C-alpha cells in the first residue's frame, strides 16, 4: 500500500517534469480538494454534525446551501489551525446542541448515555436473582419433564 503511494508520487512528479507547466495532458488525476488531508478531517468532523435544513442528514453528506456554506466555514477554520473541539464549539454556539449527532454528556442526557448499560446489567442481574429464587422452590411447583421430541437435540458430550 505505502509502496504504491510513493510509486504514485514519483510517477506524478516525473510526468510533471516531462510535460512542464500549462499542458493539459492525461495523467494521474489530482485530488478534488486542494488539501486532501484537511478535507478528510473536515469531513470527519462534519459527519457528526446535523444539517439543520435537511430531514436527518449530516453536514458532510448534504447538498443544501447551508451545508455547503458550513463545510466551507469548517475548512477555513481548520486551515487557520483550529482544533476539532473549537469547530464543534463554534457550531453549538450558533445552533445549540441540536447540531450535534453525538449528544454531549450532560445532566439532561445522562439517562440517555448510561441507560442501556444500566438496563443490561440490571436485566441480567434480575435474571440471575429470579433463577436463584426458583431453584429454592419445591419440585411440586414445576411441571414434570416433557418427553424430548428429539433426542438428538441434546448436544453430545465429548467421549474422550
Amino acid at each position, binding site marked *: 500500500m505505502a509502496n504504491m503511494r510513493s510509486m504514485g508520487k514519483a510517477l506524478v512528479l516525473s510526468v510533471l517534469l516531462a510535460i512542464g507547466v500549462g499542458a493539459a495532458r492525461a495523467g494521474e488525476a489530482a485530488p478534488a480538494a486542494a488539501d486532501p488531508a484537511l478535507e478528510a478531517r473536515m469531513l470527519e468532523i462534519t459527519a457528526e454534525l446535523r444539517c439543520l435544513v435537511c430531514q436527518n442528514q449530516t453536514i458532510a453528506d448534504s447538498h443544501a*446551501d447551508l451545508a455547503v456554506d458550513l463545510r466551507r466555514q469548517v475548512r477555513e477554520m481548520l486551515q487557520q489551525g483550529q482544533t476539532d473541539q473549537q469547530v464543534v464549539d463554534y457550531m453549538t454556539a450558533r445552533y445549540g446542541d441540536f447540531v450535534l449527532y453525538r449528544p454531549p454528556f450532560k445532566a439532561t442526557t445522562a439517562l440517555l448515555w448510561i441507560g442501556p448499560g444500566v438496563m443490561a446489567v440490571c436485566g441480567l442481574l434480575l435474571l440471575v436473582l429470579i433463577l436463584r429464587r426458583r431453584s429454592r422452590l419445591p419440585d411440586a411447583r414445576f411441571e414434570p419433564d416433557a418427553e424430548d421430541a428429539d433426542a438428538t437435540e441434546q448436544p453430545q458430550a465429548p467421549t474422550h
Partner: protein
Amino acid sequence: MKKRLNFLIPLILLLVLVFFLGRGLGLDPHEVPSPLIGKPAPGFALTQLDKPEQVIRRDDMLGKVWMLNVWASWCVACREEHPLLVEFSRQKLLPIYGLNYKDERAAGLQWLGNFGNPYDVSLFDHDGRVGIDFGVYGVPETFIIDKQGVVRFKQIGPVTPEVIADKIAPLVRQLNG
C-alpha cells in the same frame, strides 16, 4: 399480590410512553431554538445594501432596542411576511434593520422597490457568514436586540400578526422601559 403488581409494569410503561408521544404530536421536530437568546449579538461589519461604501457595525446599534429581519429576494416565505413588516414599520416602534442574506445587490434592491421597504437600513450579507454567526438556518428569521446588544427574541419563519401583537410589541415596550 406483589407478584401480580409486577405484571402491571408493561401497562404502566406503555401509558408513560403514550403520554410523551401524545405530547410529541404538538411539537415540531425541525424547529431549532436559538442558543443566542440572552447572549450578546454576534459582532458584524457589513456594507449597506444601497450604499456599498457605508459600513454598519454591531456596536453602532448600542443604546437602542432594534429588530433585525433576515430576508432575501429568492425567499418565497419572505413575501408572506413582508406586507406585515411594512405595516409594522409605520408604527415606528423601533428601528428595523434588514439582513439581505446570500443575495445580489441588484436583486435585493429591486425586490424592495417592488414590495416596499420597511427597513431603516438593509445590511448586505453576500456570503452568508453573518447569517451563520446569528445561527440563521431558514429565511425569514427575525431577532430583537436590546440596548446592551443582547439578543432577546428570535422568530423562526415569517412573523404573523399574533407574534407581533403578543410577543414583539410587548417585549419592545418592556425593553424600552
